[in-house]
């Protein structure tokens, strides 16, 4: 069958495995669906890693922003303002140019017994450079969400913690942090959806698609340019993203239920999905 052929040729094309040339003429529907789906791997890769690393940095940033010490608070405030106040698109451009200017050096080191030759050139590649930008960006947005939640932790909970003799790190870990997560989770779900959508920008900013290994939108745009027919590739991308969004809502919804499991039904925070915002 032709579809199986397309799957074999282009299923892993976004990773550089399979047919080298992209389809040129007589582009079939199968080829479009397979190739755009293959590009989705990049969107998922960027989204998961940026979100995963960003979470921990965001917690640190939020705590720093809530700190009474000026020296800790001010840098966090500025970091959040800069990354939330400017377009992600410009951030991509700027960081890319900065990485291109880096001197070309390579370092070799052994990690878990494996020799790794790391090069600064990697920073100018999308898989690392764009990931760093997305990581910093989502950290800033998430930190603002966590900061808001941190300030809304009920005072009674903290008083109760004091009464039980909890303080410092223990109080943070057992009382403040879980409540913050519970309060922040609905907004954080939106941020996650948001971030996955933002990954579509990567190959449209200055990061080049090395050997035409691009993300879903990169291939969709390629097909739209080739066939001059936007009505097929773009709805395919839209479909993939809707599925991805639903998947995120499902996973985050599960976590939300778990975070709220100790509360009576009426007091639980509901997920309100409003993923329509761009950065």
């Amino acid at each position: 069958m032709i579809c199986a052929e397309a799957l074999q040729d282009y299923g892993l094309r976004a990773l550089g495995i399979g047919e080298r040339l992209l389809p040129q003429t007589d582009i079939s529907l199968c080829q479009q669906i397979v190739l755009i789906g293959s590009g989705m791997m990049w969107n998922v890769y960027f989204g998961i890693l940026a979100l995963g690393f960003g979470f921990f940095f965001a917690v640190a940033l939020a705590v720093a922003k809530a700190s009474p010490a000026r020296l800790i608070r001010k840098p966090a405030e500025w970091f959040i303002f800069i990354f939330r106040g400017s377009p992600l698109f410009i951030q991509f451009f700027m960081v890319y140019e900065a990485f291109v200017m880096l001197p070309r050096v390579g370092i070799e080191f052994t990690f878990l017994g494996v020799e790794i030759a790391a090069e600064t050139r990697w920073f100018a590649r999308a898989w690392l450079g764009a990931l760093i930008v997305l990581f910093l960006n989502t950290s800033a947005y998430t930190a603002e969400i966590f900061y808001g939640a941190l300030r809304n932790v009920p005072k009674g909970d903290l008083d109760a913690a004091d009464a039980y003799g909890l303080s410092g790190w223990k109080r943070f870990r057992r009382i403040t942090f879980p409540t913050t997560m519970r309060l922040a989770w609905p907004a954080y779900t939106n941020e996650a959806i948001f971030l996955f959508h933002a990954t579509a920008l990567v190959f449209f900013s200055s990061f080049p698609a090395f050997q035409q290994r691009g993300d879903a939108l990169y291939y969709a745009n390629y097909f739209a340019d080739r066939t001059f027919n936007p009505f097929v590739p773009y709805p395919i991308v839209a479909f993939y993203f809707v599925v991805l969004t639903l998947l995120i809502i499902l996973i985050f919804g599960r976590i939300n239920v778990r975070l709220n499991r100790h509360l009576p039904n009426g007091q639980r925070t509901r997920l309100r999905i409003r993923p329509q915002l761009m950065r």
Partner: protein
Amino acid sequence: MFAFCTDPATLDPLRWFSCYLTNGAHFLFYQSFLVVFALLAVTAPVSLAFGFAAASASRSHILPVAWLGKLYTAMVRGVPDIVFFLFFILVLDQGIEYLRHQIACPEWAEEIRQGANFLVCPEARTPSSNAPQWVHEVYGFSLAVFTYAIVFGAFCGNVLYGAMRAVPHAQLETGAAYGMSRAQVFWRILVPQMWIYALPGLGNIWLILIKATPLLFLLGIEDIVYWARELGGSRNSVYQYPHPDWRFWYFLALLVFYLCLTRVSEIGLARLTGHLSRGQATAAGDTLRKAAT
């Protein structure tokens, strides 16, 4: 610009920069900032109008109209906006040409879609191939504005629909009890009061709109991103002002520009919120009332 700019190679750095930053290409760069403001100035009211229409339609008692409004506002959820940008700009372009084709040359026998080509008769080309350059530019810009308005109109529709539902229902019932018709209740009671509930959401959309303006570059407009890339690229000694790759510094300037724009907007929105809160049945309005007496 300045008289001493005739031979830049001999100048000291300060004068060199004052000449460099005022040459012709840089003035085009500065003008492109006006494109950003023009886009903001046109898109904001148009998308607000789209959003208002969508929100009113969603509340309609005629089911198909309500569905249409809800479909429009739901359309942009779940899909990255950039997909819509790239999609609509092509669809609008082809749609306009197709319509003009149907009107201008109805007896055209050939297929419009021939494989990878989209061919309409020469009279339907928009803008026509012998039109001056500025027509092409204005046409491209209008398409971009319309694309923005469609996407952001859906965002606004969402916010306004929520705001309309947030107006206390008792107020509307009071209007009805005084014998007002549905239209009167809508225009005289609902619309004047909904803005304060809509403002946080609309403010958010405004900030997002600001941050979406660099995407004009993707729609093929010569905007600030285009010029920053053009001017920043390295120039060898053939050029009058040779310099290494300065694109980083140009983008840094754009970043600062957007940060300032965001900050100014935030301050403006805070003032507007205070202004609209006067006399409202909200906590902020109550605080204002107490402060006045």
